[in-house]
C-alpha cells in the first residue's frame, strides 16, 4: 500500500536489514524493520545501546545503506543510490543534529551554518542572509561571528540546529541531542524542538533516554534490531499501555 498512492508519508521503511561482517562473523544490526513517518511528525527512536538504533539512524540519514529492504525518502528510493547521489540527498533532505554538535572548530558560527548551502552551490550573499536568518531562529544572531570554543554547550547545539535548519530539509535527524548538555540546557533544546515541531518541521530524534522520548508525540522502540513498540511517546518510553504492535504491515 505504500507503493505509489501514499504520498503523505515522508519516510517509508520496508523490511530493512543491515548486516555487518566483523572478523568473519555476521552481525545483524537490523533484522527487518518497517515503519512510516508522515510529514510534520515528531518521532523518537528509542532503544538500549546495541539495539540497532544508531544503525537505523545512519540508514535514515543516508550515511549508510541497508543490506536489504526498501527505504523511500520524500518519494525517492534511496536504498540503492550511489555515493554521490546520497551526498545530494543528505544535503537537500536531511538536517543532522549530533550529540557532540560536530561544528568545525576553526570556522565561525555563521560559516558553520553556511556550510550546507556551500555544498548546494548557493552564492555567498544569499548564503550569508539565509544563515543569519537561521541563527536568528535559534536566538544566536548576536554570537554569529564567534567560534565554537567561545560558545557554551547549549549555544553550540543551537548553532548546530541552525545549520540543520538552514537548507530547509524535509526532516531533522537528531542523535542524542541533549546527551552532552546539563539538564537545564537540555530542556531549552527540547523546548526548541517543540517549537520547530509546532512550525511544521518533521523531527526524528534518536535517544536512549525514556524521559526525552516521552516528550515526543510518537516513539518507536527498537530491541535486537527489531521494532518492538510503536505508539504514543509516553506509553512507549515508559512501557505502559498496549503500544506493542506487530512490526511490519503498515
Amino acid at each position, binding site marked *: 500500500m505504500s507503493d505509489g498512492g501514499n504520498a503523505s508519508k515522508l519516510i517509508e521503511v520496508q523490511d530493512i536489514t543491515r548486516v555487518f561482517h566483523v572478523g568473519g562473523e555476521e552481525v545483524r544490526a537490523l533484522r527487518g524493520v518497517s515503519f512510516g513517518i508522515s510529514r510534520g511528525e515528531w518521532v523518537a527512536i528509542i532503544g538500549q545501546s546495541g539495539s540497532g538504533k544508531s544503525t537505523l539512524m545512519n540508514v535514515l540519514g543516508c550515511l549508510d545503506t541497508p543490506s536489504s529492504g526498501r527505504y523511500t525518502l520524500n518519494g525517492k528510493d534511496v536504498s540503492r543510490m550511489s*555515493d*554521490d547521489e546520497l*551526498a545530494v540527498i*543528505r*544535503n537537500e533532505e536531511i538536517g543532522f543534529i549530533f550529540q557532540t554538535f*560536530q561544528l568545525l572548530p576553526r570556522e565561525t558560527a555563521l560559516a558553520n551554518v553556511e*556550510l550546507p548551502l*556551500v*555544498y548546494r*552551490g548557493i552564492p555567498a550573499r544569499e548564503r550569508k542572509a539565509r544563515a543569519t536568518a537561521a541563527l536568528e531562529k535559534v536566538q544566536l544572531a548576536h554570537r554569529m561571528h564567534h567560534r565554537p570554543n567561545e560558545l557554551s554547550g547549549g549555544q553550540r547545539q543551537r548553532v548546530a540546529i541552525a545549520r540543520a535548519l538552514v537548507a530547509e530539509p524535509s526532516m531533522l535527524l537528531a542523535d542524542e541531542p541533549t546527551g552532552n548538555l546539563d539538564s537545564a540546557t537540555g530542556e531549552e533544546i527540547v523546548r526548541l524542538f517543540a517549537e520547530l515541531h509546532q512550525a511544521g518541521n518533521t523531527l526524528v530524534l534518536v535517544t536512549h533516554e525514556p524521559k526525552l522520548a516521552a516528550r515526543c508525540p510518537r516513539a518507536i522502540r527498537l530491541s535486537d534490531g527489531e521494532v518492538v513498540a510503536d505508539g504514543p511517546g509516553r506509553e512507549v518510553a515508559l512501557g505502559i499501555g498496549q503500544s506493542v504492535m506487530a512490526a511490519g504491515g503498515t
Partner: protein
Amino acid sequence: MKLKLPQGVRVDVVEGARIAVFSLKANRLRTVLTTMGIGIGVATLLAIVGIIQGLNTSFHRQLATFGANTIYVSKFPWIIKGDWWMYRNRKDITLDQVERLRHAAPFLTALSPSVQRVSDVEHGGEQLSTVRIQGVTQEYLAISGYEVTAGRFLTEADDETTRPVAVIGTEVADGLFPGISPLGRTIRVDNRTFQVVGTLSRKGKVLNQSMDLVVFIPFKTFYSSFGKGRRIEIAMAVEDASKLKQAEDQLVGILRRIRSTPPGQPDDFSINKPEAMAQTYEQLTGALYGVAVGVGLITLLVGGIGIMNIMLVSVRERTREIGVRRALGARKRTIVFQFLMEAASVSAVGGLLGTTVGLGTAKVVSLITPLAADVQAGTVAGGVGFAALVGLLFGIWPAARAANLDPVEALRYE
C-alpha cells in the same frame, strides 16, 4: 553566478581553494617546514642547472674565438684520455712533413707550423712573466682569428731571412708600453732582442688562459733563437665549417702516407678541432648535469614524501571535519579537491621559494667566482611547475584516503 562552470565543479574548486588557504594559514609553521622540503629540492636543482648552463654558455663563447673552420694536428690530443706515454712515444712532426702536407692538401685555405714556449719578456724597466712565445708563419694570422691593429703581421720574407721581429698581443703591448706606441721598439726575450712590427686585437680568455699575453715571431727565427727540439703543431683552416669533416678524412690519409704509418696501425698523430673540444666538454658537463639533476630529483622526492606525510597527518587530524562535510552534502570529489589543492599550494609555494633561493644562489656564485651562472626562463618555469606536480602527485593518495573515509566512522572518530 558569474562563473560559467558547472555548479558542482565550481563548488569543488572555489571551496577547495578556500579551505586549502585557510588550512595553510592555520598551520603556518607546519606549512613553512613542509614547504622547505620542496623548496630546497627546487633550489638545488635550479642552482646547479644554472651554474652548468652558465659554464656551457661561456665555454661556447670562448671556443667561438678559435674559429669553427680550423683544425690542428699534433702529437698530443688537446684532451688526453688514457695513456700519456703512448702519445709521448709517437714520432715527432717534422718541418719536412709540414711542407709535404702543404703540397698534398690543396683544399686547405691556410696552413702554418707552430711552436711555442713560455718566457719572460722585458722592455726597459718593465717585465712580464709567463708570456707565450709562438713561432708561426704568415698564414697563421688567418687561422688564428686575430686582427692586426697597428703595423703588420709576420711575412714570408721575415721567415726566410730569420728576422728578429715580433707581433705582440694587447696585454704585452699594454704591459710593456703603457701609453706609448710599441711599433719600432724592441723587446727582450731570454736575452734576445726582437723589434715590434705589429700589434694584435684583443681575444680575451679561453679556459682561463689569456690569449693576449702572447708574442708571435717568425717560425724559423724561433728555431734559430730557441733551438729545434720543440714540438710542432700544424694549424690549418678550410673554407668553411661544412668542409671540416671531409678535410679531416683526407688529412688522415695524407698524414699516414707522409709519416709512413704501417697499415693496420692506429694513427700516430692527433687531429684536434675546437668543435670536438666542445663536444668532449659537453659530455663532461652532461654527466655532471645528470648527477646534479638526479640529486635535485631525489631532494624533490624527499620533499614530496614530506608533503605526503603532512597531508596524511592533516587528513587524520581532520577526520571528523571530513565526516561533517560528507554528512552535510560534500561529495567524495569535493573532499579530494580540497586536499589536492592544499598539497599543490604548499608545493607551489615551496617551488616559488626554491626558485628565488636557487636563482639567488646562482647569482651569488657568478658574482664571487669566475663561474658565470646563466638560468634560462624554461628552467625556472620547469622548476615551479615540477614542484606543483610533485605536490599533486604526492597529494593524491592522502586525498583519496580522505575521500574514501566512511562518513559514519569519520563522525565517530575521536
